[in-house]
């Protein structure tokens, strides 16, 4: 079985977000880490590998320094790593990114693709499902449990107050939640091996069946007007009323704010 895991190097937002004067992220000032949902996706793939046997390939699109995050994945136990990097791919939004990643994955045999649900720097949750669309395979998002049964996967898909259990035939794509598991640590020996192994580097010309008009900044329909750190919400308003009065009060507030 062959599994492709899409990972992204993201700035660590634990210590707060830092911006350049022009409003873009100051990535240099923040530590770069493997996106947590992607890491859970990789862990899920490694567990499938241990249980059923699989070859795990990790792939990322990014600057050459994204090599670090691929080495980390290799040190955790991934078998192969592919870095898609090219100046013409820079400035990509989710559409251009998913087009690029899909163009790269078309070169590889796969039974299962796992992506993180979303990256902590963009929080769009669009790239995984878009890759599935480009490759014309089914997608199961928000996986909180993954099981393999023959040529199918059975996934618990997180829902607000319940979960859906969905079975899909492979090949398919799953987007993973960080709640899926606790990712393993790298091993020291794995780190040494990771730096002794080759990372495959692909550029624009290695992408299969993609049009230039869908790549990079030019191929990105999304334009970011402004980025900012999370806006703190106010404390809100607390009222102590009985049930029916509360309902009335809330209704009046919703009407007042034109929510209903």
């Amino acid at each position: 079985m062959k599994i492709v895991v899409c990972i992204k190097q993201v700035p660590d937002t634990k210590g707060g977000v830092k911006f350049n004067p022009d409003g873009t992220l100051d990535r240099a000032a923040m530590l770069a880490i493997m996106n947590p949902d992607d890491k859970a996706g990789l862990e899920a793939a490694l567990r499938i590998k241990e249980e059923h046997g699989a070859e795990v390939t990790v792939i990322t699109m990014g600057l050459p320094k994204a090599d670090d995050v691929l080495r980390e994945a290799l040190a955790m136990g991934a078998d192969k790593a592919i870095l898609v990097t090219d100046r013409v791919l820079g400035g990509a939004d989710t559409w251009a990114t998913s087009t690029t990643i899909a163009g790269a994955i078309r070169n590889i045999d796969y039974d299962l693709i796992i992506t993180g649900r979303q990256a902590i720097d963009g929080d769009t949750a669009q790239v995984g499902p878009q890759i599935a669309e480009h490759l014309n395979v089914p997608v199961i998002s928000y996986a909180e449990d993954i099981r393999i049964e023959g040529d199918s996967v059975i996934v618990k898909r997180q829902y607000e107050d319940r979960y859906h259990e969905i079975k899909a035939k492979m090949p398919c794509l799953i987007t993973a939640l960080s709640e899926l598991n606790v990712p393993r640590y790298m091993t020291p020996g794995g780190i040494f091996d990771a730096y002794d192994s080759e990372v495959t580097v692909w550029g624009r010309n290695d992408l299969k069946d993609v049009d230039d008009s869908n790549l990079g900044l030019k191929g990105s329909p999304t334009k970011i007007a402004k980025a900012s750190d999370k806006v703190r919400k106010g404390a809100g308003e607390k009222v102590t009323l009985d049930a029916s009065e509360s309902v009335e009060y809330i209704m009046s507030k919703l009407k007042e704010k034109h929510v209903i």
Partner: protein
Amino acid sequence: MDFSLDKKHEMARTLFKEFAETEVKPLAQEVDETEVFPRGTVEKMAKAGFLGIPVPKEYGGQGCDPLTYVMCVEELSKVCGTTGVIVSAHTSLCIDPIMTYGTEEQKQKYVKDLATGAKLGAFALTEPGAGTDAQGAQTKAVLDGDEWVLNGSKCFITNGKEADVYIVIAITSIAEDKRGRKKKNFSAFIVDKGAPGFSFGTKEKKMGIRGSSTYELIFEDCRIPKENLLGPEGRGFPIAMHTLDGGRIGIAAQALGIAEGALERAIEYTKERKQFGRSIAQQQNTQFKLADMATRVEAAKFLVYKAAIAKATQKVYSVEAAKAKLFAAETAMAVTTEVVQLFGGYGYIREYDVERMMRDAKITEIYEGTSEVQRMVISGALLK
């Protein structure tokens, strides 16, 4: 000459740091307070491959170099001295002599389980009457058919009751030199926990590294297989001394970690602590102390890393190891004492980590060769 780490060592440090912060730091105070050996942490370290870092892969290890191992002990010790010494004694004092002097059978039988962390190791040289003067040891081993019979006791043994495999140094013969003076010939042995006649005595109550299991080992007609002799008969003393050369690098790394951990806390605390209307970090007294400590810590780090690299590249590294341990241990003691002072009254309270670090630091000046012994080794080489 390049003082920077390459990418794989940097990544290894990131790993050790993350593990230490997540798995070890939250337990450090409890381990100290309750004096309970952190078995759960040892199991996690085994799983993460931390118990066989410099061991070749064919023997179950990680196939890394001594520098990587040293960085692991350093990062663990930044948050918990106990956890640092567990790894150090296991790796340097038990695995290393078997890897260096063991037969292929011994490596297969013991190193694989030790390096994967399925078993924990310890080393027993010290006796009640034989510390720095290790030649004063009394434990004897006599060959009886296909077995060695050990009698005597060892004390202050790190990983004491928790280990599964012990390297034990014992007298196997007494020879007379030309002038008729008696000279003890020592040999090294591998002893399994549970060997008949092998038991544990007193658990030591210590000033620091209180979660580390420090025990007396008792051998009463303890019988071990003949093939558990480690290295040639009569070579036990040089084996022990060479093993301690490696061990000292591990302890130097522990001392370095303790010093770095204390300095990190001092930087955080002095920025927060306000007296006379401003943070104490704004006082020049604090600034100068921090500067002196940082300089000293960095010097210690280079000596420790140099010794680790020497272990990888040189056959003999006694002097490098002695200098690293001497300076790092004295740095740990000086820095932790100074940091407690910077914390003032809070530094004396057990709720704050620095008090524990000061207690943990002291042992690094004593075990695996006191600072005085290190000075003897260094000056001995100078005046040879």
